């Protein structure tokens, strides 16, 4: 080897340098992915059963099987601007919340990597976020107002399951007009509240008592009256799982309630 031509030696040195640069470049680019995650640029609402954020990102294999099984197409995959989170599933509740219309948590069952943990079996066991009343000034109920018409307008594409219409197929919210004396959409459409009421009536979903939530999720409390119009305030209760339906259906702009996924308790295993 000592008789190597200096030209070959130079070539080898260059190749080594080039290789080191390639290495540094590619690893450097991949590590840029830490910035949006550590900087918490976006705080995503994750699908039911998601582990705490750090564990979730560690375990998610980014295959999108949860996306494929969701009956209301609530789950989307994150873009590159979310760094290490690229390809991981999230829910934009205002556009399409998780209404648990699959009942059986199909996304959880679909997850091959345990990022959505199989430790939960029922919607009320999910801990996706905590709903927060962030815009009380726009709330119709707090002004004592009712609601008539389409909750999110005719152009809105989001879907919900209305059991009285079709047990198996969610329908567009835009096909379901309301006429309410006082706006209580966030309460009446809450999947946990719906289940709790069914259970109270002795008819748990699918006849499975396990489907019965132990706690209520949301209610309206009276805050006063103006003549003969009551004013009501939405109050989030312990049973809230952060599915985002209240945020989705709120006719006010901006939505009175939003999901706070930083307050997400996140399922710990």
């Amino acid at each position: 080897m000592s008789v190597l031509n200096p030209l070959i030696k130079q070539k080898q040195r260059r190749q080594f340098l080039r290789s080191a640069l390639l290495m540094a470049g590619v690893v450097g680019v991949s590590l840029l992915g830490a910035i949006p995650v550590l900087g918490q640029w976006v705080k995503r609402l994750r699908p039911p059963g998601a582990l705490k954020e750090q564990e979730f990102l560690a375990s998610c294999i980014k295959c999108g099987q949860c996306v494929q099984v969701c009956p209301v197409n609530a789950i989307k995959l994150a873009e590159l601007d979310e760094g290490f989170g690229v390809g991981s599933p999230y829910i934009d509740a205002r556009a399409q919340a998780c209404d648990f219309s699959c009942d059986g948590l199909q996304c959880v069952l679909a997850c091959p990597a345990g990022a959505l943990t199989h430790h939960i079996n029922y919607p009320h066991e999910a801990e996706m976020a905590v709903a927060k009343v962030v815009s009380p000034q726009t709330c119709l109920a707090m002004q004592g107002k009712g609601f008539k018409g389409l909750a999110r307008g005719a152009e809105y594409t989001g879907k919900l399951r209305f059991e009285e219409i079709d047990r198996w197929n969610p329908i567009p919210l835009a096909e379901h007009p309301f006429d309410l004396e006082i706006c209580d959409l966030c309460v009446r459409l809450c999947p946990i509240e719906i289940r709790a009421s069914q259970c109270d009536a002795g008819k748990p979903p699918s006849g499975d008592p396990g489907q019965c939530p132990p706690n209520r999720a949301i209610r309206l409390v009276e805050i006063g009256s103006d003549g003969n119009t009551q004013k009501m305030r939405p109050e989030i209760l312990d049973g809230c799982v952060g599915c985002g339906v209240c945020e989705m259906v709120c006719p006010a702009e901006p939505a009175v309630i939003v999901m706070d996924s930083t307050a997400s308790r996140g399922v710990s295993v």
Partner: protein
Amino acid sequence: MKLKDSLLELLGRNPLKPAPADISPPAQVIHKLQREDKSRITQLRAELEHKAIHDAPQKWRRRRWAVLIVVNLLFVLSYWLDIQMLEGALTASRFVGFHMADLNSALQVMLAFKEVVINLLIGIVTVALMWWLLGGRTFCSWVCPYHLLAEWAEILHLKLADKKLVKDHPFDRRTRTAFWLVFALLALVTGYTVFETISPVGILSRALIYGPGVALAWVVTLLLFEIFYSRRAWCRYACPIGLTYGLVGATSPLVVTYKLDKCFHEGECRKVCLVPHVLDTVIKGRAKDVQVEIGADCTRCGRCVDACPTHSLTFKFKGIGKHL
């Protein structure tokens, strides 16, 4: 080829010139005959003339592209048409309900998460068995969507190189092993699947199935790098997925086999090969035996099988003994 040499070459060692003592007596006889047999020179000239007018066949490449496109299409259609044949993406999926997991993605997840769930384990075992049987890096050339784009980029690169507009800048092949180690370590230490962020396989597979996104810019960057700077750089010098599957396929029954007696040492195979170091044995005087199995880094793409005018390279499934 001995497993140890095959693995070391996979990890980046350059092939060693065999010592005369390592060459089997029958192979020595052929080497000697080939040097003395002047009629082979006439035959070789005829071969070269034939090649000058006829393009090498593309039989295996066409078959391979068809399989690659069908597999990726199966993913896409399973979701779009809801036919539930192959759900998920290349990182992890279900084939008619049965779990499959990309071995490198699964490795990243296991190292970052430090826990293995049963479904992932099932997926890993299934896929490891499948690719062991089919040749390991066969995944690369027969399934990986980046490979197909890179082949097109390579065609462009070679055209430009022909016109002296670009020049290939090779890297040290040990870089890939370093990448593999660094990304494994990063997953372990940071707790994030760092490599998945830039994995062109994951990015492309998800883009095909769930729609394109800005992450494709990274794939385009890699392709431009390969067109203008370094031929097939990602697959040759960087991709840890390729190394993972290479290790899986190191003892695979499906191999490309080289037959010394048919070889004219024209080097056509090495020109088209993604990993020409595995074909070091075809260089005159290097073959240790009359038949040599090509090493673990081989992607079983079949381009050498197509390129060889004298059929000295063929697919072989060991145990069945049937030559494809």
